[in-house]
């Protein structure tokens, strides 16, 4: 992942180094040139000084003159005779007798020489200085001014790192606030001292939250209100249908179809109401310890008629397993799963329910020996109003396609995981739900 902080640090320090390097190099070059010029001037001065000091002297003694290791001089007469020299100087002329600067090798070092013809005494003065010493002296001078700049870069890098950190703090705060937000928390974000650049961003995020909240509320209210409003006329319809049938005593097929349609409508409305009653924000506060095994056996007992009608064999295996959850929601979950299994399992079919604790929580498994669902449909069947139709069977099953959407809803609410696969029977669907032991907050 790309870090803005690291990116800014790298690019800023790299820019700093490059710009500083180029300017330092230019500075270094001209400083070195100036220093060399100064050294050359000093050599010239030394030569002239020696010339004036030796005007009277004509001896050819090579007296032991104390000079430093990196300087020498020679004095030659007009005929090319060495008159005198410092003890570090060679006996021979290292360069031509022509006024100017020369670089020569001597005694294992490189020397920078100045050859100076003294017009008064008609002598040649040669003064030499060791090149490496000159260079290192010049470099010392220049480095003394340049080196602080390099430490400066290191210090600047540390400062830049720190300052970028403070500069990015509002962004960090924002992302921390967003990360710690609950899924259903749509309250606006509040940040103190918001910088100008982020003002717009936070404003837009808050607007989005507000609109999302509004549309959630609207959708919920609308569906719940509509379902609720529909219940009364449907109940009335059911009663009047019942009364009409009694009055006319007619038991023809038309009545039955009508009755079935009204029942389906009633079921649909109930399911829609259930879906919204199990929405997280509706029951978030009412979690409690629930024995899933006991709950499952209760649900089976209550809906036993459903299985008995189709002579289905239902089996509950497992032991007492406690999870932390919402009673009403879990009851609905079991009801939906079992009614689905019963619906798809054939007459005299089998349904097996397992409930047992695992390392991380509790596992609930529901298996049937119905036709099953092909794996490529697993994703879709949780969609609202989606119903899987097996092309090979023309049996039309009652239902509205909301059952598994409600299951999905409840599973998310409990932070559980659902997995679909083929059942251990010859055919059929296996639903595995893993509940965590404790409901995460």
């Amino acid at each position, binding site marked *: 992942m790309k870090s803005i902080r690291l990116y800014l640090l790298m690019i800023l320090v790299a820019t700093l180094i490059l710009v500083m390097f180029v300017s330092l190099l230019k500075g270094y070059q001209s400083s070195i040139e100036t220093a060399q010029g100064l050294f050359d001037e000093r050599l010239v001065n030394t030569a002239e000084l020696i010339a004036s000091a030796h005007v009277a002297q004509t001896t050819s003694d090579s007296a032991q003159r104390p000079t430093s290791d990196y300087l020498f001089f020679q004095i030659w007469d007009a005929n090319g005779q060495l008159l005198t020299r410092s003890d570090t100087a060679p006996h021979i002329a290292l360069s031509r007798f022509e006024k100017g600067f020369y*670089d020569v*090798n001597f005694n*294992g070092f*490189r020397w920078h020489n100045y050859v100076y013809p003294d017009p008064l005494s008609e002598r040649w003065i040669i003064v030499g200085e060791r*090149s490496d010493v000159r260079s290192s002296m010049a470099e010392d001078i220049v480095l003394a001014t340049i080196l602080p700049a390099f430490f400066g870069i290191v210090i600047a890098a540390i400062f830049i790192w720190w300052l970028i950190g403070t500069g990015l703090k509002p962004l960090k705060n924002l992302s921390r606030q967003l990360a710690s937000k609950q899924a259903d928390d749509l309250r606006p974000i509040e940040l103190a001292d918001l910088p100008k650049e982020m003002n717009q961003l936070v404003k837009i995020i808050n607007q989005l939250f507000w609109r999302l909240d509004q549309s959630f509320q609207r959708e919920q209210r609308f569906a719940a209100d509509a379902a609720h409003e529909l219940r009364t006329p449907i109940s009335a319809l059911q009663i009047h249908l019942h009364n009409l049938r009694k009055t006319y005593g007619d038991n023809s097929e038309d009545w039955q179809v009508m009755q079935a349609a009204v029942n389906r409508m009633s079921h649909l409305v109930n399911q829609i109401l259930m879906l919204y009653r199990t929405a997280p924000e509706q029951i978030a506060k009412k979690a409690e310890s629930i024995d899933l095994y006991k709950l499952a056996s209760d649900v089976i007992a209550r809906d036993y008629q459903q299985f008995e009608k189709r002579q289905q064999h239902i089996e509950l295996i497992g032991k007492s397993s406690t999870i932390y959850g919402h009673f009403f929601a879990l009851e609905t979950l079991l009801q939906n799963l079992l009614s689905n299994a019963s619906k798809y399992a054939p007459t005299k079919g089998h349904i097996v329910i397992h409930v047992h604790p695992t390392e991380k929580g509790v596992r609930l498994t529901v298996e049937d020996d119905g036709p099953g669902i092909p794996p490529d449909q697993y994703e879709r069947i949780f969609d609202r109003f989606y119903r899987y139709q097996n092309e090979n069977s023309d049996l039309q099953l009652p239902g509205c396609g909301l059952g598994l959407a409600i299951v999905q809803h409840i599973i998310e609410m409990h932070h559980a995981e659902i997995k679909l696969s083929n059942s251990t029977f010859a055919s059929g669907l296996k639903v595995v739900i893993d509940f965590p032991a404790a409901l995460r907050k």
Partner: protein
Amino acid sequence: MKNVFIFTSMLLISLNSYAAPPTFEILIKDHLFYPDELIIPANTKVKLLVKNQDATPEEFESYELNREKVIPGNTQAIIFIGPLSPGVYPFFGEFFPKTAQGKIIAEEEGK
């Protein structure tokens, strides 16, 4: 295209190494070149035998001659230069440029 490349390369590869070029010796000692001024004939290919007598490696380098060659300590290296038109061609040791300096002077023969 590749054929053209090979053809050009073949054109450029010379077969003129029959005539042994004159050899000149340059010593490296104490990070200095001896001699530091080498006079060679102009317009002639010359073989330089650079002997590094220091324990440290040195890189013979010259922008004017377009040459660069690393010479490890206590070894010798061959560098071909020229044919050069008359003139002064400075060279230096890149590892010790403050002291290892020299120049090749190409002079026309008979001068």
